[in-house]
């Protein structure tokens, strides 16, 4: 840590000690209540990511089912959705939502919607691949027993698909949390923006930025752990 600080610090010319380090932390994050800014930014990041992942997952399920449907207009519409959303940069989409479609609306809500709709397109592809990855014989076996298409889908195909897509779904979840760091483009003071504001106010770049980085890391790491736990539980039937 001392080496790191030595390189990146603009705090005076002398060598750094532990107490200097604490002093800087105190000056940048505590004394001026910078931690409150960070905390409020974190809250907004979590809020946006939380609603976005719900919207994205719901849209993903819906459009994935449309993509595998036999009804052509539904397939066409779902393809249009994924093509358009995946072909435009996130920031551009976010700004279109923020300044054109929902101009003047609550920016947290707008950001949640924009990130959710964006994530939904990726979830669609993840879920579609998962459903289509289930052996064809499973659908045939279900149907041959007299189960309807929706019954077979719900009881036989989806449980297996969910298990198969969990790792990629986790990555999408984590990617989404990181993506929200551009929310400030539509004037949301999210975690990244909060760090940036403190940097501006204190002329110290490394304390706020590393703090922010560590918080992101803690969130993504925690999610990864939670999902791998879920994965292990679902893998029960694979064990002999």
């Amino acid at each position, binding site marked *: 840590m001392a080496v790191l600080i030595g390189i990146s610090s603009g705090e005076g010319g002398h060598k750094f000690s532990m107490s200097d380090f604490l002093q800087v932390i105190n000056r940048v994050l505590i004394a001026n209540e910078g931690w409150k800014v960070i905390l409020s930014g974190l809250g907004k990041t979590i809020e946006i990511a939380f609603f976005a992942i719900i919207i994205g997952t719901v849209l993903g399920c819906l459009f994935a089912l449309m993509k595998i449907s036999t009804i052509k207009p539904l397939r066409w519409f779902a393809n249009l959705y994924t093509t358009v959303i995946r072909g435009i940069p996130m920031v551009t989409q976010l700004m279109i939502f923020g300044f054109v479609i929902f101009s003047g609306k609550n920016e947290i809500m707008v950001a949640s919607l924009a990130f959710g709709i964006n994530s939904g397109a990726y979830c669609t592809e993840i879920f579609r691949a998962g459903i289509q990855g289930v052996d064809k014989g499973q659908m*045939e*076996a279900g149907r*041959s*027993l*007299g189960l309807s298409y929706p019954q077979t889908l719900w*009881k036989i195909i989806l449980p297996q698909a969910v298990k198969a897509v969990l790792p990629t779904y986790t990555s999408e979840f984590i990617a989404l949390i990181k993506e929200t760091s551009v929310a400030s483009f539509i004037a949301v003071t999210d975690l990244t923006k909060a760090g940036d504001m403190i940097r501006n106010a204190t002329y110290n770049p490394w304390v706020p930025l590393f703090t922010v980085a560590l918080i992101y890391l803690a969130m993504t790491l925690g999610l990864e752990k939670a999902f791998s736990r879920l994965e292990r539980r679902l893998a029960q*039937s*694979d064990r*002999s």
Partner: protein
Amino acid sequence: MIEVKNLTKHFGDNAVLNGITETIQKGEKGVGIGPSGSGKSTFLRCLNLLESPTGGEIWFEGKNITAKGIDIDAIRCKMGMVFQHFNLFPHLTVLQNITLAPVTLKRQTKGEAEERAKKLLDRIGLLDKADVYPGSISGGQKQRIAIVRALAMNPDVILFDEPTSALDPEMVGEVLELMRELADEGMTMVVVTHEMGFAREVGTRVLFMDGGVIVEQNKPDEFFSNPQHPRLKDFLSKVL
């Protein structure tokens, strides 16, 4: 019981079935044999509409099941099917595999279905496997459970699509033995297989398919001892 009238099936330009007219009586054990690509599996899969016929009609228990607006799920409840690759549901235990369809379709209560499933498992000597997942049992056991799963719906006929072709040689016997028992109990069966011994001993009628038509059919003794058509003679000389 099953009446097939001038059945045709094309996959694109590829004509797989070229006009099959055939009747399966109640209690019959019809065994279809023939070279690969002769259309015998496609014929079987057309009987419960896993493949939709290009032309012709299929009547089952007095109903035209190829007619528009027919409730195919209700028909399939009466027509069990056993697949080459078993198609057990890997995310469900052996017991759940058997009870899923009767319970989902409200044919039996959960308790009734489980009791019956256990009786069936006991009969094939696999009661101790009730609570394990299909991943941990042998191919022969899987196929016998797949047969029991079909039986749990109390079908009037069971279609077997090369039920022993994916099995290790030492497991073929146990599956054929169970099929033989069902035959002895009077179950109507349509079997597509490469097991000539089974066709001879259990079949009440053997049908030879080649090029998408039924080339020759007869009672097993006559069929094997006195084949008429040169293609059947050629085929038997290769496989016997």
